[in-house]
Each structure stands twice: as C-alpha cells, then as structure tokens.
C-alpha cells in the first residue's frame, strides 16, 4: 500500500513537473505566460504570509507594502546604480526582512485582531513612504526602465524566459519554507500559534520567534518584489497598497492557511480567476471580501482542508494528506 502510494506520488509529481516545464510552449500567447508569472510571484508572497499567519499565528497584513519595499529596493538599485537582478534579489530580501522585523515589533505587545489592525496601519505608512519618497522613489510617477535580468549573457527578456526564473524561485522558496518548518523553528512557530503561554513555559523564546516569523514573511515578500520589478520593468506605489495585501490574504485563505500546498493552489487559482473578474472592475475587492467570508464560514483551512476532509470520507489518501493535522481553533 505504502509502495503504491509512493509510485502514485512519483507519477503525479513527474507529470506535474513535465507540465510545468512545457507550459510556456503550449500556452496560447505570452499574456497567458505573463499571468502565470504573476501567479508565481503571488505564491512567494503567500508562502511568506503562510509562515507568519498560518504557522506562527502572527497576522502580518503589511504584505502588499512589504512586497513594494522589495520591488523598490531592486528598482532603485538597478536604475540608479546599474546593479543587476542577481544582486538586487538578495538585497531586496535583506532590506525587506529588516523592515519586516520593525513591522513585527508590535506583535510583542498586541495580538490577533489588534495585531492585524496595527500591521495594516504600518503597511499604509510604508505605502505612503513610497509615495512621498521624493527623488528616491519618484512618487506617484513610479520608476520606469528597470532592466530585465541576464543569465551569463543569456537575456531573460521575455515572459517565456522569465517563467523559468520564477519557477526556480518558487520551487526554492517552497523547499526553504518546508526546511524551516521541519526544524525546531517551525515547531516553535506552531507552539506559539497553538498556545502562547504554554510555549513560554516550554522554554520557547516567544519574542524572538514572533519577530523571526515577520522577518521570514517579509523576506519572501522582498524576493517577490525583486522578481516583480525586473519582470514588469516599471513599478509605482499604487500596486503595493492594501488591496495587494487583501488579494494575497484571499488567495492564501482560499488555498489553505497553514498549508504550503494551499499557497500553491491559491496562488495559481486566484490570479487566473482575477483575469475573468476584470469585467466587474472595482467590485473585485468586494468579491475578495465575500470569498474570505465564505472560506472562514464554510471551509476554514481552504481548498486543501476541503480535499483532506473529502478524501478521509472516501478513504482516499492524497499525496498531501500526510501533512500535519490542522488545529481546530484558528488564531488565539
């Protein structure tokens, strides 16, 4: 039985791998590839959000603006100093991670909903800073002419080529997150989420891990920002406002808060859905709000939790059924 499971798993993974590799060639047009590239960027932000919120129970609702910090770091370094993508990426990760630590400081004083409100506020402040950054951020005009990356002389200058860069980054980001979660860092995160008082009593340095959760989430947003800036070659502050946070929150909750696979599912599904929702324009935000409510009421844990529940009814084991059991109570 176990062997069968492994074979099924291998076949599924292999098929998925092939599909991912050939996708740019079978896509109808480069716009479709572009949307999937965006999806990959959202997956990275979502993994970050999941680490903080889904695993450590720390509401980081400044993800959109933090993504902007990463994008602006890369954009400024590239357009002012001509620094290439490969150096801007780690720079964006580090700088956004540091700012994430500041965003995380209030978590030592306030919790759950209050923390959500405080981080939304700090996100707005970051966004305003981007808007009023004078000659550094070019204000509402944004920064144009960001160069696309170059891989040892091979220019990554189309959506098709950029696709593979994002694919590698998403796979890397996914496995780094898994590695973190499998270590005692991840266990400390979950302990803090499950029972803050008990975690302290077990010798977990809660303050350190809370801030660390914010740093990790911000670092993912930073990486996503650098990828975004060099892909689109133009950025402006309005992209990285609260609605970006809301979108990532929605896709993570629909996919499955507290599950990395959930980030993959939501990260691919929602950006595609968004394309179809373009006809309703400004009503999109309302749609996300409704989607969050529906998820919270009818399927806490998102699509991933739903598939787990269905598979346990029908006694089917899914490749991701062996992930940790979900807790009954979300948040505090």
């Amino acid at each position, binding site marked *: 039985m176990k062997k069968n499971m492994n074979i099924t798993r291998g076949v599924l993974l292999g098929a998925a791998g092939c599909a991912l590799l050939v996708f740019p060639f079978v896509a109808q047009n480069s716009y479709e590839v572009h949307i999937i590239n965006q999806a990959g960027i959202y997956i990275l932000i979502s993994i970050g959000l999941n680490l903080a919120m889904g695993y450590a129970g720390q509401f980081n609702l400044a993800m959109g603006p933090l993504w902007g910090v990463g994008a602006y770091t890369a954009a400024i370094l590239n357009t002012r100093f001509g620094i290439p993508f490969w150096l801007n990426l780690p720079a964006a990760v580090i700088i956004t991670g540091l700012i994430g630590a500041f965003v995380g400081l209030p978590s030592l004083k306030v919790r759950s909903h209050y923390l959500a409100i405080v981080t939304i506020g700090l996100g707005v402040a970051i966004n305003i800073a981007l808007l009023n950054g004078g000659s550094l951020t070019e204000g509402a005009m944004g920064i144009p002419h960001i160069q696309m990356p170059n891989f040892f002389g091979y220019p990554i200058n189309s959506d098709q080529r950029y696709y593979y860069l994002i694919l590698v980054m998403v796979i890397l980001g996914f496995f780094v997150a898994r590695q973190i979660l499998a270590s*005692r860092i991840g266990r400390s995160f979950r302990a803090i989420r499950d029972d803050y008082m008990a*975690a302290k009593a077990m010798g977990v340095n809660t303050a350190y891990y809370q801030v660390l959760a914010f740093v990790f989430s911000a670092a993912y947003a930073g990486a996503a920002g650098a990828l975004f800036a060099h892909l689109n070659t133009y950025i402006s502050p309005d992209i990285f406002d609260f609605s970006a946070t809301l979108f990532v929150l929605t896709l993570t909750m629909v996919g499955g808060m507290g599950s990395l696979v959930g980030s993959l599912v939501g990260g691919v599904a929602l950006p595609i859905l968004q394309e179809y929702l373009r006809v309703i324009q400004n009503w999109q935000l309302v749609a996300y709000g409704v989607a969050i409510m529906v998820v919270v009421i009818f399927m806490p844990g998102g699509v991933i939790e739903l598939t787990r529940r269905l598979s346990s009814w029908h006694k089917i084991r899914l490749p991701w059924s062996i992930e940790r059991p979900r807790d009954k109570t979300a948040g505090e």
Partner: protein
Amino acid sequence: MFLEIEHLTMKFGGLVAVNDFSVSVQKGKIHGLIGPNGSGKTTIFNVLSGYYKPTAGRIFFEGKRISGLPAYQITAIGLARTFQNLRLFSSMTVLDNLLVGMGHHGRTGILEALFNPVAVQREEKGFFDKAMSLLDLLEIADYARDLATSLPYGHQRRVEIARALATEPKILLLDEPAAGLNDIETQKLREILRKILDSGVTIFLVEHDMKLVMETCETITVLDYGKKIAEGSATSIRNDPIVVEAYLGREDVL
C-alpha cells in the same frame, strides 16, 4: 538553598493574591502546596514560572535570583511546569509536544535549517530518542504519533507532565495533576511521581486530592487567603487546628 521564595507579595490592583509568602523547597523531595480555592496557589506558580512580576519579594533558585526573568529563561534555568487546565499544543502530535519542550537545548539555528539539514536531522534524532524514553517513562509511548488533544483526558495529563520533563528541569511544578483523574489513574500518577523523583527531579506539587498530597509529600505548606498558615509533615498538618479551620467544615477531607 534549592528553591527559595522570600516574602513574596503579588497584588492585582486592590486584590492581594499572595501576601508575604516565604517557602524553601528542598532538593530531591516532593513539596506540597495546598489551600482552599482562591488561596493563591496557582498565582505563586505563575510568579515562579515568570508570567507575573512579583509586587514585592524575591525568588532564588540554586542561589540565582529568578524573579523578574522572562519565562523562557526560567525554563532554561531548570524550572518546568504543567497547567491546571491542560494547555497542550492542539495541532501537534504527542511527540511534537515534547519536542517543543526540548527545543531550547537545540544548537541549530536558521543557517543550519537552511543549509545544513544533516546537522538538523542529527539533533532531531537526539531529541526524538529522549522524547521516546520520556513517553516510555510515563507509559504513553504508543500514542506518540497521535494528535495530543485526541487522547483520553488522563493520558493528556501525562503528556503535560512528559512535556514539562522534556525541558530537562531540576524542579517540576505540578499544578493539580490529579484533577479529573479517577482512582486508578491517580494511583498511576503516584507511581509516576515516584519515578520522576527517583530520576533526580524535585517536585513542587499543588493539589486538591488530599489523600495524594498526604501520602506523597514530605513537606506540606498550607496557604489561605494568600498567606502561609502552616507548614510541616503530613501528620502535623492534619492535626493543625488552624488548617482544619481554613478548610471549615471539611475536616473529614483531612
């Protein structure tokens, strides 16, 4: 000089929960702390484990002042506790609950987690072996892979104790470990307390089950309205008129 509480006072606004309380817990013994409901027993535990900063007074452990230290450092120094109302990590297996308690002995950090999975795995293996031996000690090893909160109540109590032991404490603070247990389970608990003591861990026990306290504790301290009213052996406590009065009309309990 093992665990010394000196003139501890804990006030919450106008309420004096603990009033000028002093006690000295001897190494290698079971020390009982009893008193009617609301007499301040759990408050003393919460101060000991670092949740509250005492209004006045000092606490020393092996000569080192621990009052005022953050909770996780107090655990690292060697005080571990269980909770009156179970506080297991609800999303984790029994094993993972214990592994959290071991985390503070870990040497691997972020860099190892990212770049040196071998070191992490080696450390995890050590944690795993230690956790399994603790689960064996408490006779719940069969449940290692089960969700902690899915276990029967009595077993969850044992997981709490195992988890506290996982932090490798020198003294274990047990807050009503027999609450909600039936006679057979309480008997089992008594054996477990004995085993823990034999392994060299001192026990500071808050308990309402008088039979258990009288039979296991070498020294008993009695608390009423936040003040110490008596201290001594089980026999002397049982015959102390002040203690009997504190438990007014419940003489039969003692």
